[in-house]
């Protein structure tokens, strides 16, 4: 897949954080799309192509999932657990981007299978820097699996 088609699915409920992260991304990357869902249920719907998300032209499968843990309706961990049980799309890399660094969360998510665990830094400059690094690493360097269902 051409890296130009790479897109990110951000699962995040806090509108301020959505604002910051998108802004930080735009500063380093104006091409690759970032789509946002605001709760765990919507994330599962998106990834399974249910309901309004069945149009894969408008809502393509992402190459990277940026997952917050504290979500309404279904938590990030539940989404992760669900994803890892799905055929094919279970290959999708997941990077946790969350506020807490509780040992419990870190270990549980790694156990379920994540590619990275990031804690939102308290200073915006640090967040910018982190997103820039994320962009370079995941959207430019990384090689992705195929997730077409045929």
């Amino acid at each position, binding site marked *: 897949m051409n890296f130009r088609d790479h897109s990110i699915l951000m699962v995040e409920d806090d509108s301020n954080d959505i604002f910051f992260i998108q802004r930080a991304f735009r500063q380093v990357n104006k091409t690759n799309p970032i789509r946002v869902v605001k709760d765990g249920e919507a994330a599962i719907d998106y990834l399974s192509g249910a309901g309004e998300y069945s149009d894969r032209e408008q809502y393509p499968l992402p190459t990277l999932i940026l997952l917050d843990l504290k979500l309404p309706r279904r938590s990030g961990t539940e989404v992760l657990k669900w994803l890892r049980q799905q055929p094919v799309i279970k290959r999708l890399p997941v990077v946790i981007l969350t*506020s807490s660094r509780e040992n419990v969360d870190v270990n549980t998510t790694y156990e379920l299978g994540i590619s990275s665990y990031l804690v939102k830094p308290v200073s915006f400059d640090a967040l910018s820097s982190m997103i820039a690094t994320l962009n370079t690493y995941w959207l430019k360097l990384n090689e992705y699996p195929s997730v077409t269902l045929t």
Partner: protein
Amino acid sequence: MALEKPLQRILLIDDDPNDRLLAIREVNREFPDVEILEALNWQQIHQSFAADEFDLVITDYELNWATGLEVLQALKAHDDQRPIIMFTDSGSQEIAVKAMKAGLDDYVLKSPKHLVRLAQAVRSVWENAQVRRRASELEFRLQFLLNELAVGVFRTTLEGELIEASDGLLELLHLNSLAAAQSFFQQNLAASFHKLPTQNRWHREVKIVRAKAKILWLRISETKVRINGNWVIDGLVHNVTAHKETEATLEALNQTLEQRVVERTARLEQLNQELEMFAFAISHDLRAPIRQISGFVAFLKQSIEPVTSDKAVLRYLRQIVNLTGQAGRMIDDLLQYSSTGRAELQYVTVDMEKLVKEVKQQIEVQTTDRTIHWRISSLPTLTGDRTLLSRVWQNLLENAVKYTQNKAQAKIEIDYRTGQNEQGKLSHIFSVRDNGIGFEQKEHARLFGVFQRLHSEREFAGTGIGLASTKRAIYRHKGSVWAEGKAEAGAVFYFSLPYSIE
């Protein structure tokens, strides 16, 4: 103790005036200061008795109106301890004997030859009377004391058979006869008499269970005594039941106290933990808003800076940026400090020398513009939590680097020795010495406080939680931290870790 009572007045009863003169003369020869009162009939005798101002009586046997015996009896009726001497005629030995049996103290023959004995008789009778009086006083006092102290007195044979028992003893044991006391002794105390100690005096405490499970504690002091050629045991008995009960109550109270201390400590620990979790929850919840404020402030700055040159506005903006930065750092430091306290320790083998060198390497990346002379002694390998120990070294080394930043040639020395901690336990003692700005030794207590700083943010960056975290990390290893410093003359930070972690 009453003093010797002096002989002051004698009552003389005699019909014959010559005999009286003679007697007076004899008495006054030995006792010049003694006053002689005279009574010549019953009426005068009774008057004298009533006035009661005489110490001793001398009476003739042959009176016209009575016999000396009758006078003797009358005196005994009045006061049976008052000394009395009688004149007798020769040939009345039986009377004398009879009178002695009736309580006469002495008799003197009324003849010129024997009259000289009178003074001597008075003296010896009076002295005996004094001795008797003192003995009687002592006995009274003894009885009083024994009663007040609730002490019983007894005497037994060497085999423990009760021979004598005082009223006090009977009362103490709630018995009403010697026979009852004897069977009591036989039942309860006989056994102990078979194993008498070798000394002559000893104490013992005996517990007796009586009817209705009532318990009696007796403290018995005994001594072996030889009376009239026979060995006996004289003893004193105290009822110490109340005392024993008090002891038992105290013991119970002590245990309750200990129990309460245990409970209170547990409760305190629980409260501490709750406080910890509360502090953590707050820090954690505050972090998000502070983080987001920081974000918007950054955007605000980006938006405003290009379009305004208002110095005040730009200054406000700068301050807000700084302060939110500070708040953010404090929150992160607090969270890390909290995790130092909460995280479970994972003991592994840690090569301290390797660890220090790793930390030093990380720090050196940020100090490429400075000259720092490092000296690291050989450090041991030990057991500990690697994460916490790494933080300790990071904090101490970063501090050393920070506070020598104004020195052209910074010197940082890391040493190790073995020693004893405050409990005398064998410990590893590490030290980090720098030649930086140092501190006043009297500020030592503040060094390790949470968010306590000795310098302003402007002079040296930092929130002041590093050393508090270090202290906590070391304390969790059951070690201790301390520091020595002098203003402008550098500082040494020490921490100890016990050899064995129990």
